[in-house]
């Protein structure tokens, strides 16, 4: 059936099985491949997007439930990689393989929308994405740096 998705401020209507997870709608039907497939059961967080402003694991929500709500993917986080998290990630050489990092950045971006000066406990409590390369030390440091940058702006 035809469903309409509002992605990064743009509306796109497609024919899709309403049971299809949003993850596969984004990746396979609409070409937003920055949102990654990691586990398919909501464990790893590589598929994190913002659904109506909330960090959401897109493998766990159906096309029917996501349709019509504002969705933001990594491609729409900033027009020119100027989000403080994106800048901090580059400056601090955070990623190794990088596969988890779009989801990690989207989870952190949602947190910074409401928690402007996160403590380590905030980060531990709000971000539980998996990084198999083990870049957690740098992820934590980069979130603090980006948060400080965002507070200045």
């Amino acid at each position: 059936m035809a469903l309409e998705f509002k992605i990064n401020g743009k509306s796109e209507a497609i024919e899709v099985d309403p049971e299809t997870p949003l993850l596969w709608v984004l990746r396979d039907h609409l070409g937003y491949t920055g949102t990654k497939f990691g586990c398919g059961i909501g464990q790893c967080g590589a598929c994190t997007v913002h659904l109506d402003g909330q960090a959401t694991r897109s493998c766990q929500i159906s096309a029917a439930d996501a349709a019509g709500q504002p969705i933001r993917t990594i491609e729409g986080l900033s027009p020119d990689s100027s989000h403080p998290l994106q800048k901090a990630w580059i400056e601090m050489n955070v990623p190794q393989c990088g596969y988890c990092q779009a989801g990690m950045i989207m989870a952190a971006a949602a947190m910074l929308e409401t928690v402007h000066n996160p403590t380590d406990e905030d980060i531990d409590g709000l971000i539980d994405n998996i990084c198999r390369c083990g870049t957690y030390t740098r992820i934590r440091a980069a979130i603090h740096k980006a948060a400080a940058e965002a507070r200045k702006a």
Partner: protein
Amino acid sequence: MTKPVMLDRRSFLVTTGTVAGGFALSLTPALAQQRAGAIAELNPWVVITPDNVVTIRVATPEIGNGAMTQAALAIAEELECDWSTIRTEQASTTRDYLSYGGYSPIHPAAAFFGGRSTMGQRTKAMQQVGASARERLKAAAALRWNVAASDIVAEKSTLTHSASGRKLTYGDVAADAGKIKLAAEPAIRTPDQWKRLGKTSPSKLTIPQIVNGSGIYGVDVRVPDMVYAALRQSPVHGGKLKRYDESKIKGMPGVLAVVTVDPDEPRGVAMMSNAPYGYAMTQPRAAVAVIAEHYWQAHKALEALPIEWDDGPGAAWPTTQKIQDAAIAALDSDDNARSEMIVGDVSGIATAKKRVEQTYLTPYCDQAPLEPLNGTALVTRDRVELWHGPQNTQQAFWVASDESGMVPERVFVHQTLVGGGFGRRLESDDVRMVVAVAKRFPGRPVHVIWSREEMMRQGKYRPVVAAKLTASLDEKTGLPTAFVAKQASRGHYPRFADTAYFMGPIPNVRIDARELPFHVEPGPYRGPGYNSYAFMQETFIDECAQAAGVDPLDYRLRLFRDFPNPGWVKSLEDVAKQANWGKKLPKGRAQGLAISAWGLNGQKTLGTVVAVIAEVSVTKAGELTVHKLDASFDCGRVMNRDEVANLIQGGLIFGLNMALNEEITVADSRIVEGNFDTYPMLRLRDAPEIAVHFGGLSGLDRYSEIGEPPVGTAGPAVGNAIFRATGKRLRRQPFLKQDLSWV
């Protein structure tokens, strides 16, 4: 004719030409020039176009270790180009093949298309490319101005005539530079002359595309006319397909075909292969794949497809318990034991007064890179295209040729970013499966995706290893006088011998191995063999120190005191100082120490040694917290300090997760765990503070590997700390499945 440059006892010709209106330069093996049929075209390593862009073709795929950025840095070291003008592209394995090693001149048959850019002579080769290009650009400007090239300075992509102040960009003279003939190739800078290597750590060139989602991993490949496939392999490794009922999924939306993969069908190309790791470990498992217009359609249809399997010989190994019991029982017999190392005479061990003997066990573990296995292949009558993220592009190239039966010159591999490998993407058994499916649906690109469950249950695991270690201790010093290791596993890469302990510190050594016929397939898992051995060895040494009544640090320092590579003692001393070894801690909280090395290959001054001190606390109820890991290391010298620190931080987390959490189990001969709910991973909240220290570096002339070494050391350091906190000695992994409570 200019003299060829010499690298690694082989000689190379610097070849130049014009590509895209700019200057292109390559390094070609001198022998290849004389080979009949070698393509005459240039295989550029670097192209400089009139817009001043420097394009570097890199053979080493970027798997997260910074190999691509490091290659660019080695060229920029000499080229003196503006760092922001650099673009990287993956070198073509097809062109490499046709030019007899045009992109793999240093290790033609080995892994030039994998690993790290600092390996062997690679840095020197890339420096030569940069230097030879720079001198041609200078010569072209000199001709333009009619001055001596020696009066021209090359810096930040600009050529300046010092006396007159005239300036040209590299782009301005790029077209001319291709025609320049030099009387001799310039010498490359020696390490003491380096300006960038060893001194700067640019952020990886791949990161900008990672943080905005534009980077293309294998699973992100989208090519015209592409279809998707979902895959199911025999749930018991080595089993066979009996039948499936396609009628049950007839009419399901999007479904195009059901295809099968038969491990027994004849395959291959009648020619010598240069596959760096051969084909033996790439043999396919029996499989069924559903092909559909979209992945979710294929996935749903596969779930609905009734399939029957014949479990095959794996039925003999129904449970983890049976496998582990067999491995431990095998240690009691020396029948079929294969000798791996004999030093001196260990016969005194049986009658020694002071003796330590313990048995250790490590479980199956899955590499679990976060990007599930996948690949896209188009097979036609005269051509195979593969879009894929292997750890070694050449291996993928040859396996694709072998599986499709296509001659290598008609196989084209498009290397993508790689979402983690850790060994799982090394052998290219995934490539074989992708091509095996795609060749049954020729003419359209088939994008095969393993579900996480399929990937985890169809692994090539860190094998179950059992080992019995015995040592006799000197009655006065308490140090080991003889050491015997008996090990049993189905697996490759036994690495017990790869340690400094057996190159002098322990004078009498015997190591042997027993190969067991388990059906569960082993494979390379970050630090193969070493990841089990380091745990066993370093736990055992701690037990010897305890039996001798000697402090664990002091015990190891005494053992390595006279070892010719000072990195071992330096790393121990540095980490002890940094972590304040021996500091007073409350009951239930303690430090533990371990030291191990990867990549010695039997040589005293090779490889990378890592010493780790872990600080942990354990509640009486048995709840473990790892507070901090301090690491000091010696890889000789460091070429990129920040990237080395990054990889050690990550390697320690990887090793910690392996030791605490990871275990793949078997029930009904099938793998039980399928996803991260049952195969847990550390998260931000679990990650300890990590401090990487550089005070252990010996400064010896080598740049050894960094990815694997920390993986072995983290676990035993934590295990030894748990012992000191609780009195409980952990001789098996994973730790968190064991009772750590104490009174």
